[in-house]
């Protein structure tokens, strides 16, 4: 029964062999594999110091100036002195002089660091560095050093001695020179080094496993797909040649069977070539580099499907026009449309994600929203649109950099610092102003982790923020008490109370630079910021924050890792803090300072580093964890009442409790939003909010009304009891960018997505065991976009193309 169709498939191969195509391609692949064959790796003992100033990963000297200072100031210690002896005296004197002169320019810091690290590297090269009088290896906490000692130092090889020296460096400068990786892996072509990995063999393998599908995807989708389409394009036009088609059609076979057989023939042909290529690469990487990566093998069927998607287009065009050149051109155009459509969508989607409402402040009749990167916008009641709030040039550059990152078609592994961080703005009704802070992500060493504080006085009803300066002291959160007082929470767990109207503090800075006299306007702010990164801190400091905020306890602070882990109860004024599996409640003492009132240990099975949110309102305390677990406590007794995991796959984005404590709203990264009413603790569920599944923000206002932002920038009000929509609502028209976005999204959904198949390969090749771990912190992982989605949509597209082709073939008179 299948004989006729198998004959067609067989004929596809005869055609390929007859015109020597198969042989030529096999030869090309063989040459390619032979060219890869000289690749090899060399694993050696790691003894160097990686100094990569400014790099996010791999830098073993995070604070070069601290290393230099430590070396200069601790020469009384024999181990430090030993290393210092490798420093030229002239260099030593120069460094001392520079430090005394206070030369703290970042470039000068790096240069001094490089000098000291050079001396340390010289010491590492010295096989006679180790002195048993200086270092007692038996007492070392480093097991490797102990092992070296037990083996006998004199018996160590030259490489092992250097390794010993390198470990002694980290031993002598703990925290300043981080320990080296286990081994150095060099990737070589014959004997020539191509690249090296300081991460050790295991990490190197895992990195390659992550990157390989990505690289293969790009390689296969560019050259491989093009060759495959070119090679298979003549199959259909040849079959549809009028002279030969009549004979084929006269045979007792169905037309759709004939068409599909020819189609499968082309796919099998490509599958064989792909199998030869990928299995060859798999063997090569396995034998030559020790990488037995199954994602390479998984790629074979997946990329044959990718090819089949494009071949379905090529075959249809070839069948309809009976012309190979038209088939190739149309397929190439189709690929270009898919690729461009996907890229444009990614760009638009990136910007769209960034411009979604992430946070809302309702201040004295004005509504201020911050999008995902912290760019503020104000609601214009007349135009019924959000208008960008005025920001200075530094902020503009900051936002522009963020938007630019979102334009990248491919987000590199590990991601980019694209989300807003800083101190969320709050409205202080007592003095009628909005205050908040944003971290800069531009390369400014001085600003790193220090938020620039924005302040906007709303007396004149206009939102005109000005920069007060950099807030030091690791401030992480502003809280507004029920009485209107503003509390600044620091990462050390200290609370600071606003001492008075901020207007009084502006301009009271003691050592105020001359050019900041008139820095109340944005224009002048811009001028002052041109002084260079290292001077920006001082130049823009308008306010002495030590005077503006006064300590307000507690005596026994508990460090707070994030603004998620602190909340102020609007009913009682108490502050709840979560830290290391412990809830601490602080209440206001008689002197106005906060003091610890009660604590409770939270019994959870996972690590204390799990991302946690705390909300304490009314008589309810809520905890939410990175694994998706939500726990309800009684606010007074701190006894646990209920625990849920509403969504298991998506990470929690934010939680918020109504000021009366009755409701908790939970917003997930996937846009789902759940609501809990404590009147019925069993009743936590996704409610029928407009835009459910696409909600970017959900929070209660002081009147216990629920505000939900969806789409991109629509903000709607709900009564949490009845779920009825309320007024006002902020519902801008869909115009401009978003209008195009919706159309492009529609096109993107329909078309195949050539650039996304590596996700499925990665998904299939990654370990499945870790995915079942219920204690995984989902917030630390990429949001699991369905890796099968591009595959499924591609296969659906292919099936539609094949069905259409069969229908046209069936209906056409030849």
């Amino acid at each position, binding site marked *: 029964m299948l004989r*006729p169709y198998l004959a067609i498939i067989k004929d596809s191969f005869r055609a390929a062999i007859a015109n020597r195509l198969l042989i030529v391609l096999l030869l090309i692949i063989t040459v390619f594999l032979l060219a890869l064959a000289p690749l090899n790796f060399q694993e050696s003992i790691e003894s160097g110091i990686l100094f990569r100033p400014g790099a996010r990963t791999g830098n073993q000297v995070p604070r070069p100036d601290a290393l230099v200072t430590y070396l200069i100031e601790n020469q009384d210690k024999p181990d430090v002195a030993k290393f210092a002896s490798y420093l030229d005296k002239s260099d030593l004197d120069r460094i001392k002089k520079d430090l005394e002169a206070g030369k703290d320019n970042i470039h000068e810091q790096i240069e001094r660091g490089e000098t000291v690290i050079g001396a340390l590297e010289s010491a590492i090269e010295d096989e006679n560095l180790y002195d048993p009088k200086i270092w007692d290896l038996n007492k070392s906490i480093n097991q490797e050093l102990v092992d070296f000692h037990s083996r006998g130092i004199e018996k160590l090889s030259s490489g092992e001695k250097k390794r010993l020296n390198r470990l002694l460096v980290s031993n002598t400068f703990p925290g300043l020179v981080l320990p080296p990786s286990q081994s150095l892996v060099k990737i070589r072509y014959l004997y020539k080094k191509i690249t090296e990995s300081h991460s050790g063999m295991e990490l190197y393998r895992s990195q390659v496993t992550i990157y390989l599908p990505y690289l293969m995807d790009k390689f296969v989708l560019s050259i491989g797909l093009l060759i495959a389409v070119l090679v298979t394009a003549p199959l259909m036009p040849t079959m549809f040649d009028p*002279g030969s088609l009549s004979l084929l059609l006269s045979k007792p076979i169905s037309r759709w069977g004939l068409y599909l057989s020819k189609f499968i023939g082309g796919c099998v042909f490509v599958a064989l070539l792909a199998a030869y290529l990928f299995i060859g690469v798999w063997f090569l990487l396995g034998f030559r580099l020790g990488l037995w990566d199954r994602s390479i093998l998984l790629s074979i069927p997946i990329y044959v499907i990718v090819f089949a998607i494009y071949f379905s287009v090529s075959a249809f065009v070839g069948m309809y026009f009976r012309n190979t050149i038209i088939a190739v051109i149309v397929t190439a155009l189709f690929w270009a449309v898919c690729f461009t459509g996907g890229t444009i969508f990614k760009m638009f989607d990136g910007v769209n994600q960034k411009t979604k409402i992430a946070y809302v402040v309702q201040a004295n009749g004005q509504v201020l929203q911050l999008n995902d990167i912290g760019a503020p916008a104000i609601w214009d009641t007349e135009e019924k649109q959000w208008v960008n709030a005025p920001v200075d040039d530094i902020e503009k550059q900051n936002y522009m950099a963020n938007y630019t990152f979102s334009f990248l078609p491919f987000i590199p592994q590990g991601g980019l610092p694209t989300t807003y961080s800083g101190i969320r703005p709050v409205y202080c009704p007592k003095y009628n102003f909005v205050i908040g802070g944003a971290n800069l992500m531009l390369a400014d060493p001085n600003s790193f982790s220090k938020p620039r504080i924005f302040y906007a006085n709303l007396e004149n009803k206009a939102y005109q923020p000005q920069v007060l300066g950099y807030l030091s002291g690791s401030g992480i959160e502003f809280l507004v008490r029920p009485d209107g007082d503003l509390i600044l929470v620091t990462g050390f767990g200290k609370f600071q109370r606003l001492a008075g109207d901020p207007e009084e503090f502006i301009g009271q800075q003691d050592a105020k630079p001359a050019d900041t006299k008139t820095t109340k306007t944005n224009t002048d702010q811009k001028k002052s910021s041109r002084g260079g990164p290292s001077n920006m801190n001082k130049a823009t400091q308008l306010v002495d924050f030590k005077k503006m905020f006064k300590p307000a306890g507690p005596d026994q602070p508990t460090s707070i890792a994030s603004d998620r882990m602190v909340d102020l109860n609007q009913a009682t004024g108490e502050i709840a803090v979560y830290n290391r599996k412990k809830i601490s409640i602080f209440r206001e003492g008689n002197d106005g300072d906060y003091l610890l009132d009660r604590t409770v240990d939270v019994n959870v099975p996972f690590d204390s580093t799990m991302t946690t949110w705390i909300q304490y309102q009314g008589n309810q305390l809520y905890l939410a964890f990175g694994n998706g677990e939500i726990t309800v406590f009684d606010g007074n007794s701190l006894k646990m009442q209920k625990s849920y995991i509403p969504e298991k796959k998506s990470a929690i984005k934010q939680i918020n409790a109504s000021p009366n404590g009755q409701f908790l709203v939970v917003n997930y990264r996937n846009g789902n939003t759940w609501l809990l009413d404590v009147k019925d603790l069993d009743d936590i569920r996704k409610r029928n909010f407009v835009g459910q599944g696409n909600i970017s923000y959900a929070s209660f206002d002081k009147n216990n009304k629920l505000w939900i932002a969806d789409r991109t920038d629509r903000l709607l009000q709900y009564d949490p009891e009845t779920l009825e929509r309320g007024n006002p609502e902020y519902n801008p028209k869909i115009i401009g960018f978003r209008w195009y976005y919706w159309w492009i999204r529609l096109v993107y959904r329909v078309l195949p997505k050539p650039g996304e198949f590596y996700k499925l390969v990665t998904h299939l090749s990654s370990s499945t065991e870790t995915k079942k771990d219920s204690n995984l912190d989902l917030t630390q992982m990429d949001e699991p976009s369905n890796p099968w989605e591009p595959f499924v949509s591609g296969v659906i597209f292919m099936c539609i193309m094949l069905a259409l082709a069969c229908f046209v073939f069936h209906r056409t008179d030849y």
Partner: protein
Amino acid sequence: MSKDLAVDVHDLRKTYSGGFFWSKKFEALKGISFSVARGQTFGLLGPNGAGKTTFLKILMGIISKSSGSATMLGKPAGSREGRKRIGYLPEQLRMLGHLNAFNALELYGNLSNIPTSTVKAKRDHLLEMVGLSEWGKVRVGKFSKGMRQRLGMAQALLHDPELLILDEPTDGLDPKARAEMRAIINKLSDDGVTVFLNSHILQEVELICDHVAILDNGELKYSGPVEQLDSFVSQLNRGASGSTELVVEFELAGSIEHVNEIFPQTTMQQYERIAGDANQHRFKVSLADQAAIDNRVDNLRKRQVSILGLSKQQITLESAFLQLIDDPQEKSATLADPAPLNPPASA
């Protein structure tokens, strides 16, 4: 529909659509009806554009019919069951160039659901039969047009078809190969295979076929035995009196005045003087029957006109074909015209 019929067609119509939004229509078959009994060797004749290939393609299911009915071997035309039992040799066959003769037979045999082993068992005999026994391993791309036709014939016979449909089978063949092809067809016919031949080479049809159908401009002009074609044409040419007209060629010696007394100049066709002699004449006339011929001969002899020669013209397939496909108005004009009859430009 009878199961004894190899082909049975009733009021078959095919209209092609084309142009902007398929607004232009062209009727290729205008309701033709005929049948081919099993065992017949049937020829389908018609000038270019008559609808012959359209008809065959409908039979094979390559194109769809607009209306009417057509069956092959009792199965609807184009059905897979019907195609299983048919061998088909299309017009201007171009086999896939990458195949050699053996591969081609294997492919087309497999497509007819014949196992490769069976194909291998039969292929030598078939190739020998079509004169390609030395060419089994040669790529079809190197074959001449005639060789491709012969290979096409071989593949059509692979599965021992009950009905063989041949579309211009001798097209492109040299005279010797044509004779060989005719011999093959005759042998198949003798073996009881129904042969349906589509050709514009009239002599070939005349030599091979026992039944013919003549298509012109999408209309069926004749369908029946070859030997009845002349009487059909004769009946068709019967004059207003209802009698059959015979075309007779006279060669006479005598004065032209005497001849014209018997044959007025207006009734003479293709008149010429023999060897330039003013008293020797050759011409054709149409006469009602043998009695009329006898009457004219008697009168000529009375006037001392010698009868050098007299011959009654036979109606060949060619002349019948030409008469049938001509437009009736043109035909009547031609018959009334004393100008010489021109032979057909091509067969």
